[in-house]
């Protein structure tokens, strides 16, 4: 391992070192404030170190990891998102769990897993990253001890996610059995050399995708999503919906690109079909949902459906870089937006120990009582609905461009139909928020920390900036792809 290797891995190093530091700190001083601050610092530092890591050329660090700009970009995104999650969790976890310090440790480890996924170009790193992410999430989901719902959610997630991992593993084993390599890129060349149409290969690829489809909650592997989202603590739901999803998606995209699984046209077409099903089912399921977390869970199914469009578009498009750019932009925008939406739920529920679920009527009049929070929700909902000025719009525009370029008319039709249905339930939240409260406004929370102003403000700014001045990010994406 050379110095350049270390430099290019600096986010991972910081995260793992940070985990050790945190453990030590917990062992000696139990102080949630300290742990939270430390965690935020570590995550922020890791995010910043991506800039440092990005100063050197694309670097292959052992066969396992590829440190390119793409990986670093998403690394920094995940670390930043995790930092936001840590900040959001601070008040929340103090109310919802005893011994909250390990929470932050697990969060750091989980982020480490996500970052590894971003780097992964090898089955081993892929699997380990995935499991590091998942296992810490099981624990995080089950973390609060005052309610039994997190327990149920964690159990469901663990059992199903374990099965999905096993399926993916089995698929990789099949691929390995025939090609004899575990590296994605070599896998690609070997697949090209092998006689095409080998059923075991396509079956292996399909099993890998099925396992990942579960993690991404693509129809028909989506049934767990609302239950887990609903039961998990709000900040973790946000993390699960943003970072975990994005990391898996990035890894899958890597796999498909490096190993050129696009050669299995039928598989890609099936992904297109699943995209359509996800868009429609996700939006229909969210339609009349009054529990905001479940609603967002269903909406995340739809959004992954939108995002899957790029697989088909990649296949048919003449401008393939565009489709990858679209995916990257969409993921970034979606991460910011989802964090904002769940962050808001966290802030609302931080003071309501007895109630984890937030129904629509709980946000009635929020706009007049806590305008900044409501503004955040408004921006997040508009962004999810893909209304201009928000990040979600540019992302959707990217998808449109990619799909038009690839002439995927059916997918586009579903996208429009799904978005049309989506407007209803996103707007319903806004409507409830802006309704005049029936009773006198309740006292604003007594423990309004600076986080309640700074975080929403920053998230709003990020979403709006991504929505109005996207060129900087687009140019960056263009340069690294």
């Amino acid at each position, binding site marked *: 391992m050379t110095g350049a290797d270390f430099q290019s891995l600096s986010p991972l190093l910081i995260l793992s070192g940070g985990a050790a530091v945190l453990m030590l700190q917990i062992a000696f001083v139990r102080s949630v404030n300290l742990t939270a601050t430390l965690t935020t610092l570590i995550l922020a530092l890791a995010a910043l170190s991506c800039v440092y890591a990005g100063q050197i050329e694309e670097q292959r660090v052992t066969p396992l990891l590829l440190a390119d700009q793409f990986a670093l970009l998403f690394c920094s995104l995940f670390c930043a998102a995790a930092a936001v999650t840590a900040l959001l969790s601070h008040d929340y976890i103090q109310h919802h769990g005893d011994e909250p310090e390990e929470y932050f440790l697990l969060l750091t480890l989980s982020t480490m897993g996500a970052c590894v996924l971003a780097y992964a170009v090898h089955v081993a790193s892929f699997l380990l990253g995935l499991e590091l992410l998942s296992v810490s999430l099981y624990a995080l989901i089950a973390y609060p001890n005052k309610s039994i719902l997190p327990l149920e959610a964690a159990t469901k997630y663990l059992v199903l996610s374990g099965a999905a991992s096993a399926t993916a593993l089995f698929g990789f084993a099949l691929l390995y059995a025939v090609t004899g390599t575990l590296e994605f890129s070599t896998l690609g060349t070997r697949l090209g050399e092998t006689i095409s149409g080998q059923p075991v290969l396509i079956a292996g690829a399909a099993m890998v995708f099925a396992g990942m489809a579960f993690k991404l909650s693509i129809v028909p592997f989506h049934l767990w999503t609302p239950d887990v989202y609903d039961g998990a603590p709000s900040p973790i739901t946000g993390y699960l919906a943003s970072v975990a999803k994005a990391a898996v998606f990035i890894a899958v995209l890597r796999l498909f690109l490096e190993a050129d699984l696009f050669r299995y046209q039928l598989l890609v077409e099936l992904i297109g079909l699943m995209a359509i099903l996800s868009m429609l089912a996700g939006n229909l399921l969210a339609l009349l949902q009054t529990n905001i977390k479940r609603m967002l869970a269903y909406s995340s199914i739809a959004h992954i459906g939108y995002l899957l469009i790029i697989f088909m578009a990649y296949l048919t498009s003449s401008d393939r870089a565009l489709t990858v750019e679209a995916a990257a932009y969409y993921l970034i925008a979606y991460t910011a937006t989802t964090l904002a939406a769940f962050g808001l739920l966290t802030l609302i529920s931080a003071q309501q120990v007895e109630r984890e679920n937030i129904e629509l009527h709980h946000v009635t009049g929020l706009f007049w009582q806590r305008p900044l929070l409501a503004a955040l929700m408004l921006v997040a909902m508009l962004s999810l609905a893909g209304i201009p000025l928000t990040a979600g719009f540019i992302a959707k525009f990217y998808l449109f461009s990619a799909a*038009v370029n690839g002439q995927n008319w059916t997918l586009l039709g579903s996208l429009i139909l799904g978005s049309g249905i989506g407007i209803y339930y996103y707007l319903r939240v806004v409507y409830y928020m802006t309704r005049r409260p029936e009773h006198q406004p309740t006292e604003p929370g007594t423990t309004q920390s600076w986080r309640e102003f700074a975080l929403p403000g920053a998230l709003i700014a990020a979403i709006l900036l991504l929505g109005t001045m996207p060129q900087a990010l687009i140019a960056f994406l263009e340069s690294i792809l």
Partner: protein
Amino acid sequence: MSMVVLIGLLLIGGVIAWWTERINSDWPRWVALATVCAALLYLLRITASLSLESFELVPDPHDGASWLLHLKLAWIPRFGINFELAMDGLSLLLVALTLLLGLIAIASSWSEINFKTGFFHANLLWTLAGVCGVFLALDLFLFFLFWEVMLIPMYLLIAIWGHENSGYAAMKFFIFTQFSGLLMLLSIVVLAWQGAVTNGLLSFSYFDLLGLPLEGPLAWVTMLGFFIAFTVKLPGFPFHTWLPDAHTQAPTAGSVLLAGILLKTGAYGLLRFCIPLFPDISAQFAPIAMGLGAAGVIYGAILAFGQTDFKRLVAYSSVSHMGFVLLGLYAWNTLALQGAVMQMVAHGVSTAALFTLAGSLQQRLHTRDMRQMGGLWHQAPRMGACAMFFALASLGLPGLGNFVAEFLILLGLFAVQPWLCAVAALGLISAAIYALWMMQQTFQGEPDTGRQMRDFNGREMLAMTTMIVALIGLGLYPQPVLDLVEPTLDALQQEVRSDVIRAFATTSAAQ
């Protein structure tokens, strides 16, 4: 930059209005008023600084530099998207109308809104800014952005300050317009990529996309994407059903803005984008579009007569009147086009006035149900006189703006589609039926002596007088408006080439 300043002025004014609510809940009104006045003055200054000849120059649709004002800043080069604004006579006219009706809207809601005045006026100003943007944006992406963005404050206006069923109405409004907007976005993207294939350069600029050779089913679908988006907003039959609900539930200012300006964006879009971008297809499509227009004229008028809710009646009358616009646009000759533009302006004013009136009635009587009114003339003669004037304007009494518009449209249409013209002319009769029935139910008849009602005060009369004078002016001397938009219409007609015009004629002959 002056156009950016204009839009920015309204946006910032909105923020200030919101903020000043903390000081005093009356301040936002004054801030809003001052902002719109300032914007109007600024527009005047811009206009005055232009040379007179430039107003007679025909703007080249392929070169923004030949327009009255033109601004192009790089924005998202990846997609060839620019921040491109341009103004010609048509835009100028509609922006002026927007600001004028903005004033009316503020005046009409002066004493109506007491809940969160700051945010209300902020939304009002932002809607205005969005609409101005729509009228000025010449980059299709930017156009779409403004197109969608203006809906959000409008949605909030309806949802928050609306009446008893405002949630439903606001949602319906938003879903209709957004969904059709998505179709338009798709069309825009398809068009841009088509342009990239033809020109070798990805661009969303109107000036680059005009005159693309488009054929085949894809082009049809693309055209329909634009058409549906604009027709929903217009609103044209059968996409109009959001309108009665939205109008009825919106607060007065919301109705004024909706009817006065937002509907015009649909007509503007058809005129500026839908037809010139797809000349050949539009020519083939014209009979259907005109059929929808005529259907809207008749259908709106029939349903207007059936209503018992004052605002709903006026809303359906809008459907009927905007049907004329659709007819005029697709007739595509100078007469009809001028008529359509005239109708946009005149209908904007007359309907704004009627909604203001409806708002005043609701504020005083706490009902919009006309069955509970009657004989109001006795108690409020000034209101009655104004209502009578605008009812007559709305039924197209000669000497008022609406007549000029409808006459020109029908005159132009007759040369193209005489039978359709005859059908649409039935709308003139039914307009008389509903407009007079409305007067009968509200202001005429035996007054309810137990009811106390305040007549218009000075502020309200000022607003009304402004609109009355405007309508009379438009009716008796419409030439300034006609002259203002004439170069634009000439340019657009040149764009839709002569062989296509012949195609229009032959479709009419085939009918």
